[in-house]
């Protein structure tokens, strides 16, 4: 109703600048930031890239996300899916921009971060140095807690290091981002196994006041078909981990990868790169239902991986203890199931065989429940193995939190980062004795965009495509190449519409330090000029007929201050008087 009144009031303006009203509680964010599980301030760093401030852009990303280069490579970019620009042409290439700024920073030499001061004494233990654990450690270190991360493997990084193959995410990139977290004063102890070397009790005895379990999902899911124990059947996770560890793996001539996720694609491409003559992916649904990223699928096809859709393995046939073939059933698609994908239904008597000598099941991962304390495991065998509060990530044991893949099932890096951030907030509140549930940001996020009439905007096609592989160039060429990339990136960044209110990005700049308009109520005559002028619809008349500035929407452009007939509006930072003073000093020179 309120909307309608506002609509009618401004109907003479082609309904274009209708700003949305804010409820007291909601936090209005641009769609990209609202869609990101870690709520990275996309609008802000894209605005900085527009200005060519690449270093500052990385700093802005790091406020919310410790892995700019990693996410710039492998994130599934929900921000781009949410981008409001799709209404016009295409989404802004957010992921590619992030990758570029992070790479430029790394290659030009990152400034070594200084250890953060410790404000509190309570020690926090984090189990698992994957994206969730490291993010929680990063956030808690920023809050001022002494944090120790325990990792079972020899190197931190979790699935980012051991599961994503080198050609998608280089190891030195992971190492660099983790080194940044270590520089901030986070201690990472590797080679410590949870459930064996340490337990919840032993950590408590060592003086850790809070524990965050983020061990992820380490076990590959079984196929549950006969012949799974044959030689030549290796789970995708184990396969990728072994490759990452540099172990010698005898890859067969003909390899079948079973599954349609990113891990399946990674395993298939890795097998191909390791020398397999023929690699096929067997997936029980069709291409549309594949959870893998579309461009990854394309790259796999380019690498020569074959795809067979609507087939499911029935059994693995062996000969002398070795894999000889996979027998499959054809499937057809039925009604959509609870995940929204159409359920595959086997077609009777459609058995057929694929001659292979290696089978890599990549059906997903499950939690290694044996290492978890038994009191944490849920009784319900069908549900998730670990019972946690989805908002606060608390477990049944006080002071023990769990999040990331271990609680949600296998997901993505950015979701794990989001869980790590939530855990850090919960742990901080728990240690400070505050209410864990009150005013959680996650609960009150709303999307916003000021654009109401897309016809008034100009189309600009996406021109920036990130380089898949770095070309080999001489020093001079590389310099020119970098300049070209930078200018392309700026062009791309200029496509951003800036949906949200002030982007809070230009903290280092004199001008837009969150400048806001202020109305002198005594002078305002309610002529409504400011409401018409305001490009983001941040001003409207209140019930007393006086203009009111919605501070959360105001972008500080000052158009209203420049036009107010009674000069009742002035800017907080850059008022008319200040501009005049600048003019006078300039002219005195």
């Amino acid at each position, binding site marked *: 109703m309120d909307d309608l009144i506002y609509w009618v009031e401004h109907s*003479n*303006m*082609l309904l274009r*600048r209708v700003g949305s009203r804010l409820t007291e509680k909601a936090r209005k964010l641009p769609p990209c930031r609202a869609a990101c599980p870690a709520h990275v301030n996309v609008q802000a760093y894209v605005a900085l890239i*527009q*200005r*060519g401030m690449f270093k500052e852009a990385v700093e802005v990303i790091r406020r919310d996300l410790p892995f700019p280069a990693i996410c710039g490579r492998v994130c599934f970019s929900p921000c781009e899916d949410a981008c409001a620009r799709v209404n016009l042409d295409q989404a802004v290439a957010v992921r590619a921009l992030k990758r570029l700024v992070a790479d430029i920073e790394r290659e030009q030499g990152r400034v070594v971060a200084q250890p953060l001061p410790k404000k509190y004494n309570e020690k926090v233990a984090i189990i698992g140095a994957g994206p969730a654990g490291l993010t929680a450690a990063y956030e808690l270190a920023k809050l001022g807690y002494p944090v120790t991360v325990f990792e079972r493997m020899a190197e931190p990084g979790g699935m980012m290091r051991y599961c994503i193959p080198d050609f998608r995410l280089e190891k030195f990139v992971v190492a660099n981002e983790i080194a940044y977290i270590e520089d901030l004063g986070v201690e990472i102890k590797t080679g410590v196994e949870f459930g064996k070397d340490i337990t919840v009790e032993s950590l408590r005895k060592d003086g850790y006041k809070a524990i965050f379990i983020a061990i992820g999902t380490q076990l590959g899911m079984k196929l549950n078909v006969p012949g799974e124990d044959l030689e030549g059947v290796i789970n995708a996770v184990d396969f990728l981990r072994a490759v990452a560890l540099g172990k010698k793996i005898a890859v067969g001539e003909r390899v079948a990868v079973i599954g349609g996720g990113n891990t399946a694609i990674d395993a298939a491409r890795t097998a191909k790169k390791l020398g397999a003559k023929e690699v096929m992916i067997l997936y029980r649904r069709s291409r549309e239902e594949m959870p893998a990223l579309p461009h990854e699928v394309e790259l796999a096809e380019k690498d020569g991986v074959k795809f067979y859709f609507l087939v499911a393995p029935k059994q693995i046939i062996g000969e002398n203890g070795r894999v000889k073939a996979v027998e499959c059933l054809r499937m057809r698609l039925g009604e959509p199931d609870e995940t929204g994908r159409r359920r595959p239904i086997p077609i009777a008597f459609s058995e057929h065989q694929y001659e292979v000598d290696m089978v890599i099941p990549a059906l997903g991962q499950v939690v290694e429940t044996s290492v978890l304390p038994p009191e944490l495991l849920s009784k319900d065998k069908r549900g998730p193995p670990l019972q946690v509060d989805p908002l606060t990530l608390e477990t049944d044991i006080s002071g023990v939190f769990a999040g990331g893949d271990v609680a949600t099932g296998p997901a993505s890096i950015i979701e794990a980062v989001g869980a790590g951030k939530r855990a850090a907030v919960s742990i901080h509140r728990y240690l400070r004795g505050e209410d864990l549930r009150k005013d959680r940001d996650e609960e009150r996020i709303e999307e916003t965009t000021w654009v109401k009439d897309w016809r008034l*905007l*100009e189309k600009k096609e996406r021109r920036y495509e990130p380089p898949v592989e770095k070309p080999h160039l001489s020093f001079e060429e590389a310099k020119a190449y970098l300049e070209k990339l930078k*200018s392309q990136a*700026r*062009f791309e960044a*200029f496509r951003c519409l*800036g949906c949200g209110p002030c982007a809070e990005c230009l903290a280092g*700049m*004199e*001008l*837009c330090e969150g*400048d806001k308009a202020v109305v002198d109520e005594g002078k305002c005559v309610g*002529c409504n*000029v*400011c409401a*018409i*002028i305001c*490009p*983001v619809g941040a001003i409207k008349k209140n019930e007393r007929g006086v203009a009111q500035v919605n501070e959360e929407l105001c*972008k*500080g*452009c*000052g*158009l209203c*201050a*420049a*036009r*107010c*007939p*009674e*000069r009742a509006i002035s800017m907080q930072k*850059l008022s*008319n008087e200040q*501009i*005049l003073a*600048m*003019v*006078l000093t*300039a*002219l005195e*020179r």
Partner: protein
Amino acid sequence: MSPDAHPPRIVCFMCNWAFCEEEMRIPYNVDIIRVMCVGRMDPVLVLETFINGAEGVMLVGCKPSDCHFVDGNLHAQRAVKMLKKLLALTGLEPERLKLLLISPLEDRDFSHYAKEFTEEVWKLGNSPLSKEEIVANLAAAKEAVSAFRLRVLLGREEELTEFMNAYGEKIPEEEFEALLDGIVKAEFIRYKIHYLTRVKPRSVKELAQILGIRPSAVLRHITNMRRKGMITLDKVEGYTPLYKALEVR
């Protein structure tokens, strides 16, 4: 080429988003003042800059489709149009004010534009600011753009010409132009009268002589101004009434 050996002093108000290169070559006679958007430039500030001795003022913003604030640059365009009309009345050459809308990525060389504008202003010669009359005129013009009438017209121009007014009518561009011309002129004359009578009380005849318009027109303006409380009858000398300005707010 010019009687003056020094290049003219130019103040350039530049959008924060235009020319964001860090290393920008700027001629030494040009001063750059960054604002959030060119549309943010209050007409008063532009006139103040002229009054304080700038010989040229340049407003730099983004191309129409690139504005970060939808149409801040178009607002600037309207303001510049009005200011030029006003400047023409004051006797200061309207060419001393320039609006430049560029793409922040395609045109990287600001110094080129700055030099071009410097040349243009240089050709106009010394600023006529030394003349007392023009100072008075500029002060009157400043008062005129600080007042409600011109500002509200400027603020509503887009609404009136592109959308519709409260009666569902759309004003054609030419009609609006004529309206603007009339109002700019009337407001300028009224504030000029206000300025002149502030110094000492003057008669209609005297004012008409200074302003170079018919006494009846002056009287019409004075009647209007009296209604608004801008001017009052001071005394009557013989049969001639003398008017004196009142302080407005």
